[in-house]
């Protein structure tokens, strides 16, 4: 009896382990369904933004299913998304991608949120040769290895100022020089480095390229340099707070450039409120804003998407939400063009994507990242308008000198 009880305890442990393992297997497979897998941050540090993707993906899924699903040949397929919680952790996420592919046998993958989680996930997708379209990672690192199975709908940080610089180079008389200042933050550094390259290609001389130390509210030194170098435009990659300080001090020191542009700030209501009239003519960039209007393939257009979205979730969608809709739009178009659910064929169709979505036109670079589609904004009359390329208003350039303003 004693010996038996020793064994029974061991067996009990073993039994529990295997019982739980069996519990881990879930599998229900319905026909005429295209299964997408998505490991998203439901909990943890990234869950606030993760929720934006979840809300949007669900809304887009319902919209596709209501309007007849995705057509493969003559058959209509409904969309189903299997979600898991990656706890904002990259190893957890990579493990779940494995699970989605091996256990849940999903057809295709949707990306997680943030670059650091996207990369390990994309490596798993590559191992199994299953395409992943992601709308939550912008780092160039994701695409640096030329993984053929990853496609991203967020433009590269280095491309942020591309449209601004293109617009600038198109003005007559053609501006000659620019000043670039940037925050001490990896994202801002990438933005600035990328902008420098693009500017030089466009024949714009970068006369000042300087880092702003973190948390500094004093731009006197930089502005004095700007004044003496007299560039045509001053571009800043930084945060809202710094942007406000910069504009205020530029006015105080009477530093006049023909254009001031910043990455974040101008599109935010706070920025305009703090600066009042001084915010006028300041340029900004954004990959998307709810004010834009693009035709879509899941929703009729951006306006309709914003309306439906707000009615359902009661908050304003931002570029994360729109980017998530673009993920499914890319798949819908690619699967229909491929006429098959074969991962390889769909991958090739994704690579050839050239569609209009409520997020804007989507087309991928050979490395898989979306062709930069950020738009130029300008504050005119206390409102933010898109001014380039195509916009509701024309850009005002050069901006009036501080002393000449009313």
């Amino acid at each position: 009896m004693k010996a038996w009880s020793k064994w029974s305890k061991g067996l009990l442990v073993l039994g529990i382990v295997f019982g739980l393992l069996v519990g881990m297997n879930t599998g229900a497979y319905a026909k005429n369904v295209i299964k997408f897998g998505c490991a998203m941050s439901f909990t943890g540090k990234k869950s606030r933004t993760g929720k934006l993707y979840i809300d949007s993906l669900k809304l887009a899924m319902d919209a596709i299913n209501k309007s007849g699903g995705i057509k493969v040949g003559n058959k209509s397929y409904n969309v189903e998304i299997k979600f898991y919680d990656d706890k904002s952790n990259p190893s957890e996420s990579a493990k779940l991608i494995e699970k989605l592919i091996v256990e849940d046998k999903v057809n295709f993958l949707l990306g997680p949120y943030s670059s650091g989680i996207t990369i390990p996930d994309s490596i798993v997708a590559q191992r199994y040769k299953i395409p992943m379209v992601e709308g939550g990672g912008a780092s160039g690192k994701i695409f640096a290895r030329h993984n053929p199975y990853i496609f991203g709908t967020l433009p590269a940080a280095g491309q942020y100022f591309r449209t601004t610089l293109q617009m600038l180079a198109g003005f007559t008389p053609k501006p000659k020089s620019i000043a670039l200042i940037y925050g001490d933050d990896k994202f801002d550094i990438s933005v600035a480095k990328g902008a420098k390259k693009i500017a030089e290609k466009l024949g714009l001389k970068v006369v000042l390229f300087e880092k702003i130390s973190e948390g500094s509210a004093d731009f006197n030194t930089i502005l004095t340099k700007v004044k003496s170098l007299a560039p045509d435009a001053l571009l800043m990659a930084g945060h809202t707070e710094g942007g406000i300080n910069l504009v205020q001090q530029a006015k105080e020191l009477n530093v006049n450039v023909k254009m001031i542009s910043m990455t974040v700030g101008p599109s935010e209501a706070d920025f305009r409120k703090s600066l009042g009239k001084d915010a006028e003519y300041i340029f900004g960039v954004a990959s998307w804003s709810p004010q834009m209007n693009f035709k879509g393939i899941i929703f009729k257009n951006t306006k309709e998407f914003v309306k439906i979205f707000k009615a359902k979730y009661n908050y304003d969608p931002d570029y994360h939400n729109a980017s998530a809709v673009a993920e499914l739009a890319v798949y819908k178009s690619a699967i229909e063009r491929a006429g098959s659910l074969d991962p390889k064929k769909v991958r090739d169709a994704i690579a050839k994507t050239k569609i209009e979505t409520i997020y804007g036109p989507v087309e991928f670079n050979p490395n898989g990242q979306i062709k930069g589609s950020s738009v130029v904004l300008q504050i005119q009359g206390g409102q933010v308008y898109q001014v380039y390329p195509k916009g509701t208003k024309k850009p005002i350039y050069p901006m009036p000198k501080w002393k000449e303003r009313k």
Partner: protein
Amino acid sequence: MAQRGDTSKKVILGILIIAGIAIPFFTGNFIIRFFTNALMFAILASAWNIIGGYTGYASFGNVVFLGIGAYVSAVLMEKGGVPFWIAFPASGLGSAVFAVLIGLPVLRLKGHYFAIATLGVAEAMKALVDNLDITEGNSGIYLPVMNLSVKAQYIFFYFMMLGVLALTLIVTYVMLKKKLGYGLIAIREDEEAAGSLGVNTTLFKVTSFALSGFFSGLAGSLYAYQQGFIKPESVFDVGVTVKMIVMAVFGGIGSLLGPLLGALSIEIISEVLTNYFLVAHTLFFGAIVILAIVFTPKGIMDIVSGRKKFGLNYLLQNIRDHRV
């Protein structure tokens, strides 16, 4: 009584060894990866047990060894073109050397002060790696991809992890039979008394910290190679330290197999909960950990080793013994 405990320990060990070797041949890639991950935590929890459990120094920065191991491999393989077979032991040694350097000043602190200092060391290391050029900063670094079929890769990582775990446990087992092990336990019980009896406490503590670092560093190297990409944020995550401590406590601090059982059961419970509750799993998981600490503070090992009869009385006795 002692004999009874020993036999069932052997039985558990036997079952674990057989199951450990058999699992990858009977399951799919996901289960293999799941267990590879669980084994990694078993290594981390067992390594933590050397310094936290046997020596009594609750390190809250043990994740730093995982991070250093991961980065030594990443930098050597990616930047230096060094093969894995050299980068792998180098990662363990790198973490061990770091443990010696950091241990000399930090192990002079006791109790809460030691815990906070180690926490600081891990955070400082994260900040450093975040800003170094050779580690490619906070945008993360890739590792070369292994040129094997998916299944073969996963089986390779699984058995490497299993091997490191076995090494950790064997070294710990041997250490416990030697002067080192007795010295460490003496330090845990009463450091001054141990010192006065001729135990070179500094040497013993640093050795224990270095062993803990060595095994964690090996795990870090394997982790990085399997992930294919690492970031400072994830390999120096203080949450990983908390997890290894919870696992060690859950399984039984200061016992050889406790951390292993703790790691396996916590990973499995967490996986099942996550599977059924998309968001609420954190709540249930927290509740289970609290209940386990309240009712079985000595961990699973205390139950399965069968020193005392398991039942309502066992639970009540625990509460009486450990109430604050």
